């Protein structure tokens, strides 16, 4: 071919089709999703996400949690997600409509986090996991996130969110380990990961 105009035109048009289909179209349609109202509880589904959890999603991003943890579950015939009881149903677009940042993830060196806030509600558990993962599970390959915590002098009573540590992990006397604001928001984010409500477009699969 000798004409550069035709070449450049072809380059634009052919690529533009995928841009329309996978960028422009989802950009417009997913902005228009509306929450559902549960017929039994009369609550909005999915529920809103608290602001501190939205902040925590940035901590989740900054420290690379997504390289080992996914946040979506596939249908029963597409993998072991539901059998593993990570979820009762597959996740659909509406599950994420309130998330400012969506991390589906492509790696599962650790468990899926779609519903981690349903499985584990104990804040202290999350702090101990982040501070010393092997204290929760001795064979875990999760790295420790010590910089999400700080040591502070106990002023009068011990802080509510101070870590309950044992053995060599124990801070020096008169001091305690507490999560930083970042650590707290990350745990708030993890606790907010609950997709245990019903959505009409994603019924629970029959056994």
């Amino acid at each position, binding site marked *: 071919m000798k004409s550069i105009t035709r070449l450049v035109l072809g*380059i634009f048009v052919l*690529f533009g089709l995928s841009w329309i289909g996978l960028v422009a179209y989802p950009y417009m349609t997913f*902005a228009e999703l509306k929450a559902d109202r549960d017929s039994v509880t009369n609550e909005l589904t999915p529920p809103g996400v608290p602001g501190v959890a939205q902040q925590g999603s940035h901590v989740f991003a900054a420290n690379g949690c997504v390289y080992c943890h996914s946040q979506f579950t*596939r249908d029963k015939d*597409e993998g072991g997600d539901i059998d593993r009881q990570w979820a009762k149903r597959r*996740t659909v677009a509406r*599950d994420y409509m309130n998330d400012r940042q969506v991390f589906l*993830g492509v790696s599962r060196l650790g468990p899926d986090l779609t519903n981690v806030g349903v499985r584990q509600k104990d804040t202290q558990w999350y702090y101990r996991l982040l501070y010393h993962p092997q204290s929760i599970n001795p064979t875990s390959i999760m*790295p420790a996130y010590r910089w999400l915590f700080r040591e502070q002098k106990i002023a009068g009573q011990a802080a509510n969110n101070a870590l309950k540590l044992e053995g060599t992990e124990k801070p020096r006397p008169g001091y305690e380990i507490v999560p930083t604001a970042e650590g707290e928001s990350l745990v708030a984010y993890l606790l907010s990961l609950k997709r245990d409500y019903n959505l009409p477009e994603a019924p629970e699969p029959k056994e």
Partner: protein
Amino acid sequence: MSQSSSPTLIEPSATNRAVRVPVLFFFASGFAWLLVASILWLLSVVQMADPNGWLSCANVPWLTYGRVYPVSLDLLVYGSASLFGIGVAIWILARMAKTPLLTGWLPFFAGALWNAGLVFGVWGVLGGGSTGREWLEFPPYTAFAIFVAQIIIAVWAVGLCLFRRQRQLYVSQYYLLGAFIWFPWFYATANGLLNVVGASGVAQSAIHWWYFGCLFGLWLTPLGLAAAFYFIPIILDRPLYSEGLALLGFWVLAGLAGWTGLTQIIGGPLPAWMITTSIVAKVLLIIPIIAVAANLHLTMKGQFELIKSNLALRFLMIGAMLYGLSGIWDAINAFRTIDRITQFTLAVSARNYLMLFGFFFFVSFGAIYFIVPRILGRFWRYALLVRWHFWLSIAGLGFLVFDLTIAGVLQGFGLMDPKVPIPAILDMIAPFVTGQVVAALVIVVANIVSLFSMLTVLVNPVWHAATEKAPEPILDLGEEMPVA
């Protein structure tokens, strides 16, 4: 074919002199980033194998796995692979345009901007400013610098094709123009909509994985194929078997590659048609692969033994074969029955490494080994280093891909079975995660050898063809233009 028959070729020609500074600048910074990326990548692989060892750097947040690993991959793609590819592209485009290059400072300036973007990108991600989106971790402000650099290079490339003296456009120019127009487009789209404007909900995921498909299919692939289609015929001193076949491959790639990315999230919370379209597109990408393989095979026909003596050709040809291999792998893996097992496992990394360390770096190194002596007027000093680079790369890559694939399949079957707890799966793949350290170490050593062999060129004196006898040939030389 050999220097003695056309000795003047080694002397830097006018075009070579004109593009010398920008091309060398891109190569040099590409090598620098390759070194940084290799070390960080090795560190991340060691951290994965030994999460509580002293290298896990638990008290130094900016050196922890969650930050080092993404930075190393980003530097491999946006640092060395992209900079090598652009350097090679500048040389090809200037050569093919057959026009005096008056604006060599423009790509040089773009390269400087690009490097600045990378420096701040590394700083940003290690410092805790990662966007947390795979392959797009750089904070928006550094992405902007890289975007401006892309635009400058795109304008320069289109300009060079507009003012060309050679009327006929060669297939390499197609691929390069495509790559230079597409990359700023999808890079700006993804960074803008994900990290600046903020798309809502899973629109982010659609855009994010669309971007991933584009990054590999419409940036790295066309850059690599342009080099393969340019240098292989030149070195063989015969025209490409069929330009029509190469163009067919180009147009199919242009139409399909943008749709392929969503195969990464099969079963994800997106409309079924999007994911099915992605699967179909990925399988159909077999067409350009067959076109490329047939074309290069028929071009090579009867001269395969040259691979033994000509090291640049060897890198290029093996790279092109690895393109085919990674594409076939991709197509097979796209089927839901297979993907259901390999999804979320280390097999995903195996494929990315095959594409990156295999196809792209092999082709780039072949081109670099061809270009650098011509641009400097100096020979490679030690062919042995180049041979070591080749065999170490092959051994490391082969072991890495094999190791991660087995690990991925084991991990995949483990994840499918709800009775196997996650720690048991990790125990199962632990030996392979350790094996990955060995493979990565071999690849990193290979990369360091390539850097070293690059540096030894500078030790050799400039060879004056008019007065001196040709030294022992290391790399065969051929005609300058591949078009018959």
